[in-house]
């Protein structure tokens, strides 16, 4: 497997002394989709600043396809990694949508025809054909987020990094955005690295999860991570609602090997188990059921009751 991003012994402190990253080490392979989770202030955004050349001389080793990022030429770097940050107003700085989406390609030194082709392609990917002439301040928040993504897609990066892509979107835009990103990964083979707090959307966007809290605290499949409730508690994280519900169903005697992480998966798993047990499932309450349930509730609702 080709290593798309490889980070070793990375440290970072802000000028006011805040230590944001400590001994970060991780490897992300080409074509993977990886989600980075962690509480507010864990350093996710700071970590991403290392991937786009904002932090010029990282204290540690950051490699993109084997090359040190600080040694790369600007044109090379933006062709490899594109980062979409959280606030679209920070990323749309040109007068019109066209200018913003064309900004990267022009800096790459492409000729006019190619620039226009890329702008059209990127805008149609995010579903905003015909928005070229619009001025950014007249767009809705969701549209601005799409343009910000298009402005990075037009550089056709091999690795796409997104900082909280689903925050503040309405349910429809959120769903559209999630399927757009997973399409980019699955169809176009773009490696995606995403930071987010939206655990219900996480399973669709992650083959693998890193838990970051200044350091890399854990790494594993979404299921591994969500099953480890003490890890979740220590890092103020949450498990998807569906997953928690099936944990409770387990206490009622429902048994399946894989606990589903998303709604779609739940429907699939339920159908499969019910078909496998001659058309019905059996749930029951025993003496110890209540104790088990309250144990599950305590473990996974640590945010609410604040119990140790």
């Amino acid at each position, binding site marked *: 497997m080709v290593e798309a991003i490889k980070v070793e012994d990375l440290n970072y402190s802000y000028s006011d002394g805040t230590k944001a990253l400590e001994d970060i080490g991780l490897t992300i392979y080409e074509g993977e989709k990886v989600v980075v989770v962690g509480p507010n202030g864990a350093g996710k955004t700071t970590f991403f600043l290392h991937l786009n050349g*904002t932090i010029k001389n990282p204290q540690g080793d950051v490699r993109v396809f084997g090359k040190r990022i600080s040694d790369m030429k*600007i044109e090379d770097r933006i062709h490899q990694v594109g980062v979409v940050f959280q606030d679209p107003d920070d*990323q749309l700085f*040109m*007068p019109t949508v066209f200018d913003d989406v064309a900004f990267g390609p022009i*800096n790459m030194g492409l000729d006019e025809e190619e620039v226009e082709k890329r702008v059209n392609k990127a805008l149609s990917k995010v579903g905003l054909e015909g928005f070229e002439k619009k001025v950014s301040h007249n767009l809705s928040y969701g549209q601005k987020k799409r343009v910000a993504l298009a402005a990075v897609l037009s550089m056709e990066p091999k690795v796409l990094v997104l900082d909280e892509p689903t925050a503040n979107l309405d349910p429809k835009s959120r769903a559209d955005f999630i399927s757009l990103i997973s399409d980019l990964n699955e169809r176009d083979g773009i490696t995606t690295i995403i930071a987010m707090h939206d655990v219900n959307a996480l399973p669709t966007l992650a083959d693998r999860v890193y838990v970051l809290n200044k350091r890399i605290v854990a790494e594993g499949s979404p299921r591994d991570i969500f099953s480890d409730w003490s890890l979740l508690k220590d890092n103020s994280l949450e498990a998807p609602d569906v997953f928690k519900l099936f944990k409770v169903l387990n206490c009622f005697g429902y048994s399946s090997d894989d606990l589903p992480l998303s709604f779609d998966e739940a429907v699939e798993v339920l159908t499969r188990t019910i078909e496998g047990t001659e058309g019905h499932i059996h749930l029951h309450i025993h003496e110890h059921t209540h104790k088990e349930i309250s144990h599950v509730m305590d473990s996974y609702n640590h945010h609410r009751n604040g119990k140790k």
Partner: protein
Amino acid sequence: MEYPEIDAYSSMDSPIHRFDPRAKIVSFTFLIFSLVFVNDIRVAFSGLVFSFFILLVSRLPPGFALKRIRMVFFFLFPLLLVMPLTVEGREIANISGISVTLDGLIFASLIIMRALAAVTLALTMLATTRFDMTMKTLYALKIPGTLVQMLMFTYRYIFVITDEFSRMWESMECKGFSLKANYHGLSIFGNMLGMIIIKSYDRTRRVYESMVSKGYSGRPRTLVHLKMSAKDYVLSTCMVGIAIFVHAYQFI
């Protein structure tokens, strides 16, 4: 949120709207400078009439244009009262020992007419072109990149900052604040302005980061497609011709 946009009517259709932006900016600028340096009040008056004629041709809604021109007029109006009293020359009246001069009156009218003509022309020029196009045209005309970039960012972020300001204002009003001209009110208002400045500073940093991440290295580059037609050449020749004539007619 409603923004007071200068280019709100730029998508209308008129000969001035169709005028190629490059030719438009060059010939309007030429004409504006020429009219500002006119010394004869009759010529200045003709210039003012001519600029109103251009405004009419542009079919901009009269309310939109007059509101802005009126503002300039109110700003300059005091000159009409002050200058006849201060400029020396032929006396037309004497109010309890203070002489009112004709030359002062003429001079004040001259200044006002020149200014109104310039403002009318500038307004017509800006209002008939999409503002982003105006900026790109400046870029195409080889105006220094730093200047154009400053204009671009001002244009882009003035709206973001206005929004930020009105959000803060609303949230303060929700908490019962109302601006009164006392110490408390003013100090809160001062704090708020300070916050806006700090927020803008933080934003500048993030915008710069995002520009760098897209390969920005100090040179602004955009694509501009402009094509001049015969009609553009004719129109700009006429305007530049008029601009020269108002100064040259006395030598002919």
